[in-house]
């Protein structure tokens, strides 16, 4: 497991000598190959049964009752696979891209290191370190390479997420000092979960808050539209693709199994928040004129669905929620990627300046329509599988309350079609006319895995579902 975790760091060292831009981009691509190899090795050895089936401890931090403990089960390994998938196809997109410099790639690898670290960490304090570590490269990536008011967006994103994770840190300190927990390892924490919940009522909330900010649950979501809009394409794909999922993963791993009593009491509140998130997220997307903000708000709505599934008591909605992570990751990732390619040439995000893309670049128009159909949860595409499982699970548990999120499904279709009509169909706008888009070979290659992934997960998702069903916390 260590190899897959520290590979990004190693690749940074390798990247350092390559000052020239396209050299760095090629090296970055080649560095992904061994990473994939490590992933395959890890997948072979990951048990699908008990949570954190495979544990490895390396050395301890004496003063802090915590140790460098890494754990792997299908939950986090599948998310790692998604990270590597996104990073791999993005590295194709980066080839020959004018704005992607060496420092961008180094920060990008740092981000990957943080992501995989927080996924693998099986020790609360280690998890916290990686959780914080992720913010730093993201802050610089958005702050430097973003578009107009990127500093505001980066600052807002950083401060909101930081505030959330400070609560997490307070919780960890409290556990270390006040409770008689021998070590911060996940197995230890989850073993005496009742004692922890009894120790302090707010403790569970401290943990939960950090994740609610990251998964933008409704009231805490306002950083997402700014961060996604201002972030450069590569970063917004990663942000939408994997970083939002970390919040959900955190909820399932560190709150559901460490503070079960709190988690199940707060489900009504979270249900209300996620439903409002779905509806207001969709309406938020409906009123946007900026395309990336529209896609960002759609992520708020989709993540509302995921949280809806994550707080239900039956296995259907839980596995549906976790599967929706992948569906959303691929569909929104593809949306951001394909629009990013358009944006690289036209440099405008206003929807009414666009129109008639279908007559100038057929492939990109097809990709965009395909991705938006996936995000509208059209059956035959992964979005439907995830959303159907979540909603039928919620129906089983909450009965006719399911009609509220169902409204979200219709609203989802409304704003996506509006986006597609504005961008792809309609008369050819002067902007699209004057910037003929001819995709380079590496852009085709970077889009291809998304298309295959969406089609495969749509029609034959059982291989992934069976694999992750094993370690879904709720049976």
């Amino acid at each position, binding site marked *: 497991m260590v190899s897959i975790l520290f590979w990004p760091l190693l690749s940074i060292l390798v990247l350092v000598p390559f000052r020239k831009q396209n050299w760095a981009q090629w090296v970055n691509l080649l560095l992904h190959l061994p990473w994939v190899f490590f992933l395959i090795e890890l997948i072979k050895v990951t048990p699908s049964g008990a949570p954190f089936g495979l544990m490895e401890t390396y050395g301890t931090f004496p003063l802090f009752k915590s140790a460098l403990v890494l754990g792997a089960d299908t939950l986090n390994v599948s998310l790692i696979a998604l990270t590597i998938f996104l990073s791999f196809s993005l590295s194709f997109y980066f080839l020959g891209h004018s704005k992607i410099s060496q420092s961008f790639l180094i920060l990008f690898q740092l981000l990957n290191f943080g992501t995989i670290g927080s996924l693998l960490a099986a020790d609360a304090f280690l998890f916290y370190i990686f959780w914080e570590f992720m913010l730093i490269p993201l802050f610089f990536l958005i702050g430097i390479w973003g578009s107009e008011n990127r500093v505001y967006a980066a600052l*807002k994103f950083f*401060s909101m997420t930081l505030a959330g994770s400070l609560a997490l840190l307070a919780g960890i300190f409290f556990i270390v000092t006040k409770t008689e927990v021998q070590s911060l390892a996940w197995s230890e924490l989850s073993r005496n979960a009742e004692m922890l919940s009894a120790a302090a009522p707010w403790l569970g909330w401290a943990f939960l808050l950090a994740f609610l900010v990251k998964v933008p649950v409704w*009231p*805490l*979501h*306002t950083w997402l539209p700014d961060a996604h809009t201002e972030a450069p394409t590569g970063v917004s794909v990663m942000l939408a693709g994997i970083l939002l999922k970390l919040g959900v993963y955190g909820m399932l791993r560190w709150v559901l199994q460490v503070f079960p009593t709190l988690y199940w009491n707060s489900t009504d509140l979270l249900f209300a928040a996620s439903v409002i998130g779905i*509806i*207001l*997220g*969709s*309406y*938020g997307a*409906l*009123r946007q004129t900026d395309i990336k903000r529209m896609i960002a708000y759609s992520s708020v709505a989709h993540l509302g669905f995921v949280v809806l599934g994550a707080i239900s008591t*039956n*296995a*259907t*909605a*839980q*596995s*549906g929620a976790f*599967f929706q992570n992948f569906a959303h990751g691929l569909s929104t990732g593809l949306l951001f990627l394909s629009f990013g390619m358009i944006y690289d040439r036209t440099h405008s995000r206003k929807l009414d300046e666009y129109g*008639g893309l*279908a*007559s100038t670049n*057929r492939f990109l128009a097809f990709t965009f329509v395909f991705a938006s*159909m996936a995000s509208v949860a*059209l*059956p*035959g595409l992964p979005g*439907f*599988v995830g959303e*159907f*499982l979540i*909603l*039928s*699970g919620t*129906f*089983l548990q909450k009965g006719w309350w*399911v*009609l509220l999120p*169902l409204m979200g*499904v*219709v*609203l989802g*279709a*409304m704003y996506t*079609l509006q986006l597609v*009509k504005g961008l*792809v*169909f*309609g*008369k050819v706008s002067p902007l699209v006319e004057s910037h003929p888009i001819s995709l380079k070979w590496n852009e085709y290659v970077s889009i291809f895995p998304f298309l295959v992934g969406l089609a495969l997960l749509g*029609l*034959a*998702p*059982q291989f992934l*579902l*069976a694999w992750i*069903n094993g370690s879904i916390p709720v049976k």
Partner: protein
Amino acid sequence: MTDVLNIVEAPLSWIILLPAAGALLNGLFRLKSTLNGLLATAFCFAAFVVSILQFLKFPEASKLADPGYLWFQAGHVKAQMGFELTPFMSVMLLIITGVGTLIHLYATSYMSHDKSQARFFAYLNLFVTSMLVLALSSDLIGVFLGWEGVGVCSYLLIGFWFEEDKNARAGIKAFMTNRVGDLGFLVALFVAFAYFGTSSVSGIMEWIADPGRAAALPVWVLTVFALAIFWAACGKSAQIPLYIWLPDAMAGPTPVSALIHAATMVTSGILVIVRLWPIFATQTEVLSVIFWVALSTALLAALMALTQRDLKKVLAYSTVSQLGFMFAALGAGAPTAAFFHVVTHACFKALLFLTAGSVIHGMHDEKDIFKMGGLRKKMPWSHVAYLVGCVAIAGFPFTSGFFSKDLILTKVFESRGVLGYGLLLLAAMLTSFYMFRSYFLTFSSTPRSHEAEHAHESSAMMIVPLMILSLLSLFVGWLEIPHMWGHLQYFSHWVESSGAKAVEGHEVEAATEWLLMGIATIASLASAFFAYVKYKKGPVTSSENFAWKLSFNKFYVDEIYDSFILKPLRKIGTCLSLWIDEYGVNGTLHGSFASYRITGQLASIFHTGSVQSYALLMLLGLLVVWGVVNVW
């Protein structure tokens, strides 16, 4: 089920894969001129041949099944992507692929000068694929896959000429209305998985058949399930609340309207209900709901069609009203009658749409019938075809329309009494009136516009499908002769054998049946003659009275929907999200940032820069501390 159910393994998935392959190939390769069209037609024809082979297996096998593969399975939800074919659905299969091939052939020449044919035929084949998935899949969730697939294809095809904004908007309207309808299907699926544990149609049938388990179900489950399926059917088959998208769907090319909005997609609602008939048979309240909704749709649509000027709009409203007839038959507890009308309607409505297409094609895309006229001499073949279509739809004796409509009327009379029968008869009369109105305005008297003078007959490739369809719409009726005349009740035998027994209303003696048939024929002949008298010479400038305006503006239903439902919902939602997101959360956030800044500024007041004031403040601080320590 009396006869032993010998299920025969059959390669049903082949029927679906063929058009799917066609769609893929057309999507990838842009061949020159009409090659794309021919490729698509070939694949559709291949599917037609395979479905004929399956059709022939039927007398022995009572059901064909193809297990397919496990689509997805988690917790209590298990979705199997399998396929099955019941006798009545095999007939529908023939319609889909048969009429589909004819329409593909017709479209090849119709779209010959369009610049993006490959995309059109890719969508068309994709549509046929999803329609086949809808018809064939064994699980309701597979049906839903086809259901939404068909919705997307109709969205893409309606908005095919995406240059004009109104086409794209019509496409969105169609997709959104279908989506609202599909919510019903989703609710039905949730109920099925929650209470029946499975979504496979045969599984649900067993659950219903077994009295022990059926009793254990909460009483509302079946009613809600039936109502949800009916709501979805309303969305897809354009019944009262959700029919608004069909007239606007005419923005798409005519072959699309013929295939999707006449023959196949709009009938999917009825197909699903007939497949789940044992559930509906037990729900009398649901049946009456269906009946009255259907009746009002039939009447309303017929009224609206009276004053339309656009030829395709007339046919669109007539489709909505004919669908009303089919659902009325279902409401009256006669799935056979409904399905028989589906088949006959598919034939003559496709014929009418295609002829309208060739007329419009000949008239260089002029749709307004007031500007047509005198096309009888200029387009003889289209004229014959249109006449046959009108005759069939109006229900002249011995045409297919006659048999199917008459069967529905008798069934409605049996179960719903005179009131239902009378209203439906009125709708039938209106149908024949507006059909013949459109016939006389387009074909008789003298050409009224420049295009009308130079209208030219369409090419052979368009005429051949017309002729085949007109033969079909004349003679398909013979398959279900009423039992007084002969025992060739081929159709009801088909439908009953696949498990859809009619609800036993009180049988009507032969005499009353003769009477009913007579009344129906006289009614349609009279209204046809009335139309002849009124419109022989040409468009009559009718006074703009209130009734006329009401009908012409489609009873302002669209406007009502917009102003009372769509706009307020959007308004409330958007400004709600604006207020909460922008001012609420961001406000608090910026507030907190601002507070940091303000405290910073406050602190800087003390930094006056003069050394002395610093010393002074330090001393003051010291004294304050000293004071506090002493006092405390």
